[in-house]
């Protein structure tokens, strides 16, 4: 199935080639979990980010137990500061 992944802020440099300004469509098998999806993105291990799916923050320890649904929008946010 196809899901929409949005990478905001500086994370957008890790979008696959041909993506939009800060989003892309990724193909995943119907039984895949969030951790499988994230592994498709070349984000270095030292780069921190938050994952939000449908207004719910997903903690890192839950990446491998969070199932992805077809209508989900997966949002990755850099924990920046200031303003």
């Amino acid at each position: 199935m196809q899901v929409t992944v949005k990478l905001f802020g500086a994370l957008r440099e890790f979008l696959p080639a041909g993506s939009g300004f800060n989003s892309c469509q990724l193909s995943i098998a119907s039984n895949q979990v969030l951790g499988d999806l994230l592994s498709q993105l070349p984000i270095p291990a030292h780069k921190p980010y938050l994952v939000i799916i449908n207004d719910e923050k997903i903690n890192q320890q839950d990446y491998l137990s969070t199932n992805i649904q077809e209508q989900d929008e997966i949002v990755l946010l850099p924990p920046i500061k200031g303003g």
Partner: protein
Amino acid sequence: MSWQKQILRVNLSNGECTIEPLNMEWANQYLGQRGLGSKYLLEEMDPAADPLSAENKLIFATGPLTGTMASTGGRYSVITKGALTNAIACSNSGGKFGAELKAAGYDLLIIEGESDKPVYLHIEDDQVELCDADEVWGKTVWQTEALLKQKYLDPLMRFASIGQAGENLCRYACIVNDLHRAAGRSGVGAVMGAKKIKTIAVRGTIGVKSADPAKFFKIVNDVNARLTDRDEMSADGTLAMIDVTNRFGSLPTRNNRDIQFEGAEKLNPEAMQTPNANGHTNLVTNAACFGCTIGCGRICKIDPTHFSVKDKPQYHGASGGLEYETAYALGAAVGVDDIDAATYVGFLCNEYGMDPISLGSTIAAAMELFDIGAISEKETGGIKLEFGSAEALCTIAELTARGEGFGQDIGLGSKRLTEKYGHPELSMSVKGQEFAAYDGRSMQGMGLAYATSNRGACHLRADPYAHDFETTEIAGKAKIVKDTQDEVAFIDSSGLCSFPAGCGWSMDDYRQLVDAACEGEWDSERMLETGERIWNLERIFNQKAGFGRKDDTLPKRILEEPAPSGTAKGLVCRLDEMLPEYYQLRGWDDDGNPNAETRKRLGLD
């Protein structure tokens, strides 16, 4: 060295301008800028005085690293009793003015008394004169700079000016330097307007020397290499935050009724950098302040066909554009998703000298008053002040800038405005200063930081961001807020910007620069104690001005109305649980007063 070791004192009541030695004992205790300016303010004025009276003082303060080659070493602060808050005000700005004042030979410029006619101050190193300001009084910030640069035939002269908002005593008038950088918050421009001083025009040729130049050069290079995330900040500026807070659910929207804005993606970096239907792109380029190697500033153009400027060619050029706080205040806070309208009102803020955060938040409060029927078109002069109306936003901003019609009420700030119309609960403020662009329900640490900020609600007085995005659990937040308040107080007293801390620097990088630039040894313990001393000094000023625990609070909406959406849906700010622990960590009594042991330890008796 790096301190110039002298201050310029200007008495507007008798016209005297004197150069005095800097009190080096205080400099060694309070470092510079925010800390040192606050020390002078507390020593020299009665904190209970009316901020718009001659008793108030207006201090322009540089730090020891202002004007040096350290990255971001262009900062200065304006310290005074705030016209918006009646609390201590310290408003920080970049641009090039601060470095120019320092290069003219001064750590501090202290303006006291009040003039009986409009004047401006002209400084060229040790040549200082007060001049009649008839030619620029009533002019905008931009006109003032242009007229005086032409008069002195010096395009490199730097200015810190008020616009008509300051002249008209708009409670959140700011002081604008270099056309679009500003000492923005707490109404420092109204204090300048009350003293009838239009602008500080400065040219400095003396330069700045560090205590150990070879060591300083090396550390400047070393720490510059550690700004590893600078490209990310220069690409999108602070505006990158709008996607984070909107998705997280901490973007104050429609006067904090909501905390996610459906129009945020019309105001975000993509919207700023992508051509619109007319082929117009808002962003022109980024910009940097003196000595900055990051460049977070935005230089933007309004679509010339947009309703706000289509008949106003003077606004078709490039100037300072939206940053995160302005996109919040002139966008989400008022429910407007029109990037050109928000950019236009941002231009007005720079041109007329208004704090866009307080302006936007006050208009948002007025829109809620309008929405519930507490005010009508009768009060607004026919303006349908509805959430989401870009036209109403632009019109009321123009009136406020000029001090006309209902704009006079908007110029009161949200606290005074909502009190006037019987609904003080609708002011999203602390100590009279409007919220910045974060909601204290989904960011509990920020709620505590707002409530305890000495200058009223502020997002730059502490650094709880990472922990707040990590968890809404309150364990540990009091300590994070307290510790980072002290760290930020040190940074704000150094002459440097706080943004390198978000681009790779640790506190030790700041410390090393101060240690190399200044005499004496500045170790970590001294750094943190200095920050803590500054925070407590500000607190003591506020105590003497009448503030106490009753003022360390948040609006009812944040304490009682559950977050309506987002990752923290259903939560309120648990301030009452965090505040006692915070007081304990600070060494304050139950009323929030620094206890005897704390005062003695920090040398504050």
